[in-house]
């Protein structure tokens, strides 16, 4: 395992990855919506070489190649989903920053809202139960008090 890891470290070094140096081409589109499409896609796709950057920011050669590929597809008229599918078919779901909604990510997407609903319900039910118990207790103690009063007054007579 350690061997594989050290090999991979070497692999990463051998990929010319100047992640923060500037090496970008400008992609200019004829219309605004194409530009927006390009911007959205490149922001939401991960660079697989400089993996903590998106395709827009990364200056790895692969990122530049993928940007060119995406730009060409946009000009040809493909929509976002088609371009995403193209890339996911080749690189897997990892390239997408937005995890697709599928069985194995249901917990991820729906979990938080379910948890919120459950948490709030538990809170309110707990508050309700405790309050009812405390009220009952104070009721009981009032009844007990009255009982004692009657017994005492009966004893006095």
């Amino acid at each position, binding site marked *: 395992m350690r061997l594989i890891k050290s090999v991979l470290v070497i692999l990463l070094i051998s990929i010319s990855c100047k992640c923060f140096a500037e090496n*970008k081409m*400008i992609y200019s589109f004829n219309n605004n919506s194409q530009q927006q499409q390009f911007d959205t896609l490149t922001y939401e796709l*991960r660079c697989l070489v400089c993996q903590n950057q998106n395709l*827009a920011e990364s200056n790895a050669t692969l990122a530049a190649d993928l940007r060119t590929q995406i730009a060409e597809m946009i000009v040809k008229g493909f929509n976002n989903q088609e371009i995403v599918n193209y890339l996911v078919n080749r690189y897997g779901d990892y390239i997408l920053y937005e*995890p697709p909604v599928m069985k*194995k990510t249901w917990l991820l997407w729906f979990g*938080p809202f379910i*948890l*919120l609903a459950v948490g*709030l319900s538990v809170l309110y039910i707990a508050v309700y139960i405790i309050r009812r118990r405390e009220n009952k207790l104070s009721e009981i103690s009032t009844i007990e008090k009255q009982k004692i009063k009657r017994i005492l007054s009966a004893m006095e007579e």
Partner: protein
Amino acid sequence: MIPELGHFALILALTLAIIQTLFPLIGATINKISWMLLARPTAIGQFIFVTFAFFCLMYSFVTNDFSVLYVAQNSNTNLPLFYKVTALWSAHEGSMLLWITVLSCWTFLVAIFSKSLPLDTIARVLSVLGFISIGFLIFILTTSDPFIRLLPNFPANGQSLNPLLQDPGLAIHPPMLYIGYVGFSVAFAFAMAALLSGRLDAAWTRWSRPWTLAAWCFLTFGITLGSWWSYRVLGWGGWWFWDPVENASFLPWLTGTALLHSLMVTEKRGAFKSWTLLLAICAFALSLLGTFLVRSGILISVHAFAVDPTRGEYMLKFLFSVIGISLLIYAWRANKIKGSSNFALLSRETLLLTNNVILMVAMATVLLGTLYPLILQALNLGKISVGPPYFNAVFVPLMMPLFFIMALGPQADWQQMPKKALLEKFWLVFIAALILGCALPYLFTGTENLFATVGIGLGLWIIFATLQGSYRLHKKVNLKNISRSHYGMVIAHIGLAITLIGITLSSIYSVEKDVRLAPGQSTHLANFKFAFTNIAALTGPNYTGFITQFDVTQDHQLMATLHPQQRFFSVQQEGISDPGISKGLFQDFYVALGEKMDTDSWAVRIYYKPFVRWIWAGGILMMLGGIISVFDKRYRKQSLKKIFD
């Protein structure tokens, strides 16, 4: 010589920490006063030795001692003095030394500012802090020693500091964060002391509240600084990336905020004690988790330190033991915790607890999103990414209800708040916020925008309702009797509202453009004209490059002059682009240089970012609110009295 002294000091500190942990704890259990009295001196001693070690390393940096491996890896003779100092915490070993130094400082402060506490309590608290110190000191001495030497063949000069880290904001961001993270260990120690002693009345909450507030302030400041730095330096106009390490600092912040509010309920009403105890344990657990995540190589992050599996293993085992033991103690004592809670479904208590539920669900969401790729991979279910699109889509809606009830909470009565009274108090403010929320986007941009309305509306709702509540309080109650905590609350809540408005407006209305410009050319963005007016060669202490000038005009009126730069650092053979930013209260103009495209023209990135400063202004306000609350007379009277006696 000095590095060896530093190393030796750490060993001495470890010895003292062991005494600090064992004797006071046993002494408190069997009621042996002489052993309990060992707590304070050993804590102070540990502080002295650890701080001495820290300064030994600092000395090595300042005197360019490249025989110390860590200095050779992170410094260089041509590095400006300020960055030689901050390079100390720029990589793993030094940052661990910073961690333990901060911990020993907090321990020291607890030791001296606790004269009003019962002896067995302070004994247990310092003992718990000592236990944490032991863990970290052993970790440093066995896996991450910053004092390792490169004798006899040491380099003439070092590898210098990553150019991105050569920035004042980034220099103080780690110490602030660490003071925050590590500070939650104090709340943890108080909670554990309460559990160990079996004395689970509300006293421990009163003692731990100022410490928790102080830690929270620093964490808020640290996170705000980090966000501001990434905007200023990274050149992409972004200020939060949901990067795993950013999330790691956000998790204790969310928990800490919940803890602060929960402490209030427990202190005032004695209610929900076990929940507050759990929160204190959880906040510290998340601090440890964050420390683990950055150094273990488990997650990909731009912040991650060099990967080493042995370090990751140790940290995980340590985290597991500390939190595991504390949760076992909690489970053991759980049934002894008697809460006195009797409050209505609509009351300040319930509102505060709703705040807690929402914050903890938000925390769980961020944790889930950060760890999910790991979970799927560990279960052999493939590899996915969870990035900003997910977090923005899920986190933001979760927080909306919190922003809404935040305004109601401070003005609700304890125990029971009649619905009618609530409506009466707030209907006017609600309508005002609603109307402005709808109107303002339309007035300024000509179109409606639902997200802008919600964001602005909620922000204004919080501001108006909080101010209104404060005004009513001043009319009802004598000025003398209004605590500083109240003002702290007002400022902090308004701060959050301002951050919310800043986030809403800058996210929705920012525009950007990538162009190719040569000096003399210009381009348009929003209603502004950006002209590339000048360029000159640039020489700095350890870099060369270009400095350019961009003039921003609107209808021929000069709005700003920007000086984006391109810097090339010869030692590291790396370049960075330093964006030119014009800071405004209501908008930023932002220009970042890309690559030189041919003889004249440059790739240039231009942004117009409205209200982005509000994000950090709000953060600073939150911090100020916290600071004001720390100095509430309730907490000061006791300790001052004892000092003067």
